[in-house]
């Protein structure tokens, strides 16, 4: 089964162990941005909230952060240690979490004016948007902070980053990482490995329980940077795969409307609700993972419209031939 991410963790670790660590400049963010590599996206969010707390922007838990309603539970849990997630703007709202779902940008031109009007800190959740753009601006650099999650793009079990132009915040993050104890990294890695390789209710429970430890382990693992570096050039294949989807399925207005300058985590496929199960089944028959997931077609945190879509994996472990094959087989369903 081809999943949404590559699962060849051990071979990747062995191959990458002799590689050189990633240079932050390889990520090609604008020069004025600072990058802090963390153990995970959750740890990155935790550190950003700690910084906002230290600046009295989040003085206590009455402060709220506007979030979408359909995020993973662990995102809410991470926020709740410092503030309260909400989906209503009030006088207590201090920040917004702009979630660029699957790597496709939120409608920033609609969101920014509202955020500025309420003087809100903008945190871009780029867990799915490692290398996507909105009107030529790199996602993660538009707001005050950007959060990356490398495990969605590379054969890594954990790994994240914070993007910011705020030098003081960057120094704060670096200091926090120095203080972070390294004791939980092996445990968290094993928990994730078991859940991915041997999925069951028990291993999922262990993984979810391990999320409570993420704030205590913000420092990245010893091989995180090397694995990213080793697999970095392979991202081109993900871009090629996405182009194949756009070319073969581009007759479909939904696919045609998806941005060309996105590097997606997965591609959401839209069809009528009664045909969706057939489409999912067709994708699965070809050995690709799929399922019905809600996607915000409005791309607007303040006014979302979630519609069920089918997932199509697009990662760099899929060859061009495989990608063409799956696209041709699902062409009739769109």
């Amino acid at each position: 089964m081809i999943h949404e991410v590559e699962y060849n963790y051990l071979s990747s670790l062995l191959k990458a162990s002799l590689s050189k660590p990633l240079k932050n400049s390889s990520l090609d963010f604008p020069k004025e941005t600072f990058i802090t590599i963390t153990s995970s996206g959750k740890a990155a969010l935790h550190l950003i909230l700690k910084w906002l707390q230290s600046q009295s922007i989040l003085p206590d838990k009455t402060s709220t952060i506007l979030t979408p309603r359909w995020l993973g539970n662990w995102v809410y849990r991470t926020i709740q240690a410092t503030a309260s997630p909400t989906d209503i703007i009030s006088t207590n709202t201090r920040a917004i979490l702009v979630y660029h779902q699957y790597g496709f940008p939120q409608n920033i031109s609609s969101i920014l004016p509202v955020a500025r009007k309420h003087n809100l800190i903008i945190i871009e959740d780029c867990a799915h948007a490692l290398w996507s753009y909105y009107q030529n601006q790199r996602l993660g650099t538009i707001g005050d902070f950007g959060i990356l999650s490398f495990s969605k793009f590379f054969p890594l079990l954990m790994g994240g980053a914070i993007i910011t132009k705020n030098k003081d915040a960057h120094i704060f993050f670096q200091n926090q990482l120095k203080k972070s104890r390294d004791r939980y990294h092996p445990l968290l890695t094993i928990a994730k490995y078991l859940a991915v390789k041997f999925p069951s209710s028990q291993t999922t429970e262990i993984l979810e329980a391990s999320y409570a430890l993420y704030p205590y382990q913000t420092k990245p693992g010893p091989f995180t940077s090397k694995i990213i570096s080793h697999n970095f050039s392979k991202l081109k294949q993900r871009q090629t795969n996405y182009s194949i989807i756009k070319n073969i399925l581009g007759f479909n207005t939904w696919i045609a409307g998806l941005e060309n300058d996105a590097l997606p985590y997965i591609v959401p496929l839209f069809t009528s609700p009664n045909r969706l199960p057939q489409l999912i089944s067709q994708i699965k028959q070809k050995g690709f993972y799929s399922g019905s997931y809600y996607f915000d077609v409005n791309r607007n945190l303040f006014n979302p419209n979630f519609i069920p879509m089918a997932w199509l994996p697009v990662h760099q472990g899929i060859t061009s031939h495989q990608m063409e094959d799956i696209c041709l087989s699902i062409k009739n369903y769109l």
Partner: protein
Amino acid sequence: MNTLNIYPYNKKGAKQHNKINTLESYLSHFWNRPALIISSARVSLYETLNFFGLNRSNHILVPDFICQSILNILNQNSFPVKIPDSRTTAVLVFHQWGYPQKMSLVLPEAIRRKLLIIEDCAHSLDSLYQGKPIGSFGVASIFSFAKILPTYLGGAITTNNQNLLDHLNQVRQAKNNFTDHLFNLVSWIIAKRSFNYGHGRYWLNSIYLESIHHPNIKKSALNLFPPNLAQLIDIQNRRRANYTRLRDQIKSQYLIPDHDKDINPNPICIPVFLEEAQQLIVQKKLRLKNIELEILHFDINRNIFQPDYRRCLAVPTHHNLPTTALEIIYKTINQS
């Protein structure tokens, strides 16, 4: 010497050979409502929301300050909010620290908004509002034993809704395999270490997150419950006596302003309002005497729809507090 805090864990609990049916029977009598013992109050809450079919589209009104583990659970099948709106379908009426909410104001507002009322009675088993026990106002009420009795684990739900009771019974029966027993064992070890020695709070958070999948309580925890109603009432009376003594001895200007005659609380702790600098001094002085007082927020309005939170010292009242500790506490506060 162990540090004294709001939890009654400074003495080893006497082990009994309790049966869950016996305990549920006397608890139902105690609360005058059918009661079920669950592994924790959080699980009771989670299953109650499941039963009523709530999901992330449904807002549930929660207080500004409430335990993070409760919020984590609520996020599983609802969206907790601090301000009610048109999508709010339920309210968690939290009788903070055992002080009853002003139900004469809260109930009409909740009914006007057509909200499902769930009472969070985690901080007291037997506080009264206008002579009625807390937990008797909502559709369902949740209780937590580990904060009141030295049981480490355990919660309960009381409700008159037979279908909800049946649902919870089914869930308990369905989750009784090897994995559940293993989880209960791990929970037990972690909770004991955390409550007794203050170790591994983060591990406790981990098991709190996953407890929703394991509704059955471990037998070892059951064996730490009082074996009969008389002993439960005795423990509650000892706590109430400690509360009364502290309330009478601490200068009245430091206690809840405009003391409400409608309430008869048996709280987990008493809010003591000193100036912030004084709170820190008292906290430091008592810490030197192995008494730990937290500085927290308390809603002096006791109204979830119109709260007014103030920072204060949380002074413990539990039944295992020695008289000497009570004296040290109120004298230190009064001298401030």
